[in-house]
């Protein structure tokens, strides 16, 4: 496969709270190739966001990366100085967050917000940065970009704000774009515009994309490969078509069965019973075993290995679906 753009190996990120250890990310491995869109999917609390913040070493206190290796273009990010990390963030690796209005400083105009990144990372003059900012706004599909440069974030619609966030993220031609649920707050017709934009930019700029979402529909629309996370672990990963069409892990199967499907309203939804485990008190063995319809006593014994079933399709289950 050649050297991956990003390789995360056996990542453990824990939060130390009042004598408890919350295992938010518990031995996660995945990789992103150049020009590939990898989806990380799972329900809230699965550890998706913490895993991605770990890559940028932005895990908030009291979170700690306690084990693992993160290789970005061959560089070991966990061994880098804070100064080198600051150079990488926003430049080679950039991130788009879920809530654009909370991530854009309301006191600055759009032109200033995009310009700041360019002045800081590319040592441009403010005037050159303004020209480039206008170009970026056009790239992300904002009409009349020159006029928009003087707008403040609150003067833009949600979809536009998210485009500005993407424009900032793209300003230094990143090799890797990390996006954390960036379309959840948007309407579906705007969401599809953003997804289409990301695909076009990937084709044009050849960047790798790591897309975090709880929506398997978005995964099917956008991603090449997908990682399904549950309780801080990877349950299944592989080509989107293989994982969504022929899920091997009972959790993936259940996630798909719980969604209403277009054109089949008569099919009763199969909810997942029970609750996800407390991350401060994870069960031994497979974390999904207490809710699993296939669980046998040995599922709760020791940790279950992630097994490659061929074609890059991996499953962490002792009794995978056929």
């Amino acid at each position, binding site marked *: 496969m050649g050297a991956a753009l990003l390789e995360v190996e056996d990542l453990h990120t824990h939060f130390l709270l009042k004598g408890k250890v919350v295992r938010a990310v518990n031995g996660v491995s995945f990789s992103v190739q150049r020009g590939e869109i990898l989806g990380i999917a799972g*329900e*809230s609390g699965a550890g998706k966001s913490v895993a991605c913040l770990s890559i940028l070493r932005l895990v908030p206190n009291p979170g700690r990366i306690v084990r693992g290796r993160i290789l970005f273009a061959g560089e070991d990010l966990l061994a880098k100085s804070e100064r080198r990390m600051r150079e990488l963030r926003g430049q080679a690796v950039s991130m788009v967050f879920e809530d654009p209005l909370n991530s854009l400083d309301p006191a600055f105009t759009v032109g200033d917000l995009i310009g700041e990144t360019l002045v800081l990372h590319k040592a441009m003059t403010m005037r050159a940065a303004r020209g480039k900012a206008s170009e970026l706004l056009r790239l992300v599909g904002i*009409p009349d970009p020159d006029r928009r440069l003087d707008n403040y974030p609150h003067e833009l*619609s*949600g*979809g*536009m704000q998210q485009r500005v966030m993407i424009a900032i993220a793209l300003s230094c031609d990143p090799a890797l774009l990390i996006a954390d649920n960036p379309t959840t707050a948007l*309407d*579906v*017709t*705007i*969401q*599809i*515009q953003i997804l*289409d934009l990301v695909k076009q930019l990937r084709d044009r700029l050849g960047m790798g994309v790591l897309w975090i979402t*709880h*929506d*398997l*529909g*978005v*995964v*099917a*629309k956008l991603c090449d490969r997908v990682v399904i996370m549950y309780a801080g672990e990877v349950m299944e990963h592989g080509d*989107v*078509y293989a994982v*969504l*069409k022929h899920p091997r892990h009972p959790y993936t199967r*259940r*996630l*798909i069965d*719980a*969604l*209403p*499907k*277009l*054109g089949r*309203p008569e099919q*009763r*939804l*199969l*909810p*997942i019973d029970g*609750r996800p485990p407390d991350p401060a008190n994870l069960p031994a063995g497979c974390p999904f075993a207490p809710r699993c319809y296939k669980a046998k006593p040995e599922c709760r014994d020791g940790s279950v290995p992630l097994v490659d079933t061929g074609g890059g399709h991996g499953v962490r289950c002792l009794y995978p679906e056929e």
Partner: protein
Amino acid sequence: MDGGPAALIQVRDLVKHFPVRGGLLARRSAGAVRAVDGITFDIGRGETVGLVGESGCGKTTTGRMIMKLIPPTAGEIYFDGRPIAALSPEQEKSYRRQVQMVFQDPFSSLNPRMTVGNIIAYPMRIQDAYTGPARDQRVRELLELVGLSRYQANWYPHEFSGGERQRVGIATALALDPTFVFCDEPVSSLDVSAQAQILNLLKDIRKEFNLTILIVTHNLSVVEYLSDRVIVMYLGKLVEIAATAELYRDTLHPYSKALVSAIPTPDPDVERERAQIILRGEIPSPLDPPSGCRFHTRCQSYLGDVCREVEPELREIRPGHFAACHLYAEAATTPTGAEPPRALDHMI
């Protein structure tokens, strides 16, 4: 429309404009947000109707007017044949009992200082229904009905997960044996597994109590799962009404087509095969909606001047299937049933 004489709720030429004040002392009127701008439809007895559209299209405002939480600017709402704007105090009390609401956010809609038992009993207290031990009995019944345990009556909302809180919200809405329940985005703040539980629960209670339901949501797969009929709204206007299966099979309005094609579905085959309609531009501001057809600025089937200048009427294109679009100018049969909605702009 199409509810016939059996319609429980009839909405006629309903308008809601929210005035916007500008200027330093907020005295000068700076126009109005035309949230709902002349809509007409019926909800039949025992029917579940899905009202869909994107943020700001006026769907929640419509529901809140039916709930009599906000007064309309113009137009009428009839419940059981009576205009809800002119109810006597007794009728009003009975109306408040018959119409109930399930809220979007189960985290902020439950009082954190009350036990869920008291939350569920609250409407009964207000309405003097089920007094004494019968009330406690009723609370226990309701808890079990929505899939919780009777012993959880003494718990506080924070002890429940999001999906369980939404069950409490549904139990509260059912406490007074309503005829009509308005569900405002009932699953949009829930995780996938909890979502499925709540959707199944709504489907079950509808059947069990023969409820009439209006469900407002932006999620078209949720609507397809629950509703008999779908109403599509765009910027304060109705653009299409059809039986659910027909709407998805034979979508008429270009906006509905774009909405249906944009629904993310977890089936990669479906995603690859179906036509993707990617609309241009953003949703215009309801403060200053476009002239003519409000969708013309983003429409993929734009016909020209007629769309920009003439507002299309909602007309019955096939039996029971209404659309407001110039594409179907010739195909329309003569309007039947209720009056087609008129543009009410001149009245304001």
